[in-house]
């Protein structure tokens, strides 16, 4: 049965699609994987999938879209028996589609950059997570720090502030501020297929952590 992983964040431009596409590409090396882009018509993940299909690189990966929460649940129902992993790239707002993702997903990843604007928006989402946990207490939501500048004081202090105020778990692996993610995404590739070894290594660490969380 498929393990469903949701990538949720209500703010745009924080790396949701970057995380979803790279994760889907990595998990497709382990088994049948479907990436569902729930942010249409923007469709970053779907466009990435189209590039990948043109290059003949899909392999075990299927890329599809969901216009709304009803279609998303319908597709998840159809796919859950045949896939090993379903990765869902959510929309940049608290919509019905975000809410069904919280309930359906075995693991929800919440990409977050070290900026106050992203922390504000995440504060709104935390309330929705709490509401979802009243229905399903086992819901597992974890922050993934993205574009994280380890050496800056602001990043460290924001990380501590978020931990104290949002009360969400964090993944240990942090994604740095690297052009590799954008370069790879624009070519239908994942960072594991790109030349930046540091990006490859850090994302590999995240994938290992995701698999451990799903085990």
């Amino acid at each position, binding site marked *: 049965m498929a393990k469903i992983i949701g990538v949720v964040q209500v703010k745009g431009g924080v790396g949701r699609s970057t995380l979803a596409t790279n994760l889907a590409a990595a998990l497709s090396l382990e088994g049948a994987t479907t990436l569902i882009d729930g942010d249409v018509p923007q469709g970053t993940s779907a466009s990435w999938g189209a590039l990948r299909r043109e290059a003949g690189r899909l392999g075990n990966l299927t890329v599809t879209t969901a216009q709304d929460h009803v279609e998303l649940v319908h597709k998840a129902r159809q796919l859950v028996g045949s896939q090993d992993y379903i990765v869902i790239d959510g929309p940049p707002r608290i919509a019905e589609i975000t*809410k069904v993702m919280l309930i*359906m997903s075995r693991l929800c990843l919440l990409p977050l950059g070290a900026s106050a604007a992203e922390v504000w928006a995440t504060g709104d989402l935390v309330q929705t997570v709490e509401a979802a946990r009243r229905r399903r207490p086992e819901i597992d939501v974890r922050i993934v720090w993205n574009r994280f500048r380890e050496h800056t*004081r602001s990043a460290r202090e924001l990380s501590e502030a978020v931990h104290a105020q949002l009360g969400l778990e964090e993944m240990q692996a942090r994604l740095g501020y690297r052009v590799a993610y954008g370069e790879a995404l624009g070519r239908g590739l994942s960072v594991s297929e790109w030349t930046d070894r540091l990006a490859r290594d850090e994302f590999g660490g995240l994938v290992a952590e995701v698999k451990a969380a799903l085990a």
Partner: protein
Amino acid sequence: MGKENKGRTDKVSAMKPVFEEALAFAQETAPGAKTPSPGTPHARPSAAGLPPAIAPAVGAVQLMPRDENVQEVLRSRARLLARLQKTGVVEEARDQYLCFRLGPNELYGIPYACLEELMYVGSIARVPGTPRAIAGVVNRRGELLSVLDLRQFFRTDAHEDASQARIIVVQADGARVGLLVDAVEGNEFYVPARVAAPLSSDGVSNIEYVQGIYEGKVTLLNIRAMLADPGLVVNRSAA
């Protein structure tokens, strides 16, 4: 049906209540909250998503949130920002550098200000009578470009895998040279104030071309000093 298939079917059946729960939660309105109206932070502020009667009238004033719940959200955000500012969250001045590798694991960096281009390693023509560190010259869109083999230059360990080798074209003060490296690792940020002075010792060669060491692991090069050395640029030394 085999046992494995039956097990999978059972697990899929077990997911049914989850899907139903998900749909029910999607319809649930948060306790004490009103249904988000167009213009709240939870709704996409696009005319396309609004009822036809409202869409033509949408403007900046109409998009300002008036709902008391929304205004409370904004006030709490402002309080959070004020707390963050009190804790002294200030970005340090920083620059970007291109990180590359020589040998199996030595990391070097070049400030972006000196960076011009990355090239695949094509045909490098050796130039007789030049030092070993000069790999040769390449034709760069009609321009003769000297290529410096940085591995020879810094006398780093041999590295047999040439598949990721690249030529980094750098420039300073009107001079330009290609640097042959074993692999480009990507871009990084650095804080100039935190660059440590290079350590001088007998085992280090060409230390005058090193700007400093960042975080104890990346050697930042002084490209301006390198390009000021006439012995390292073939077309200059031949003139």
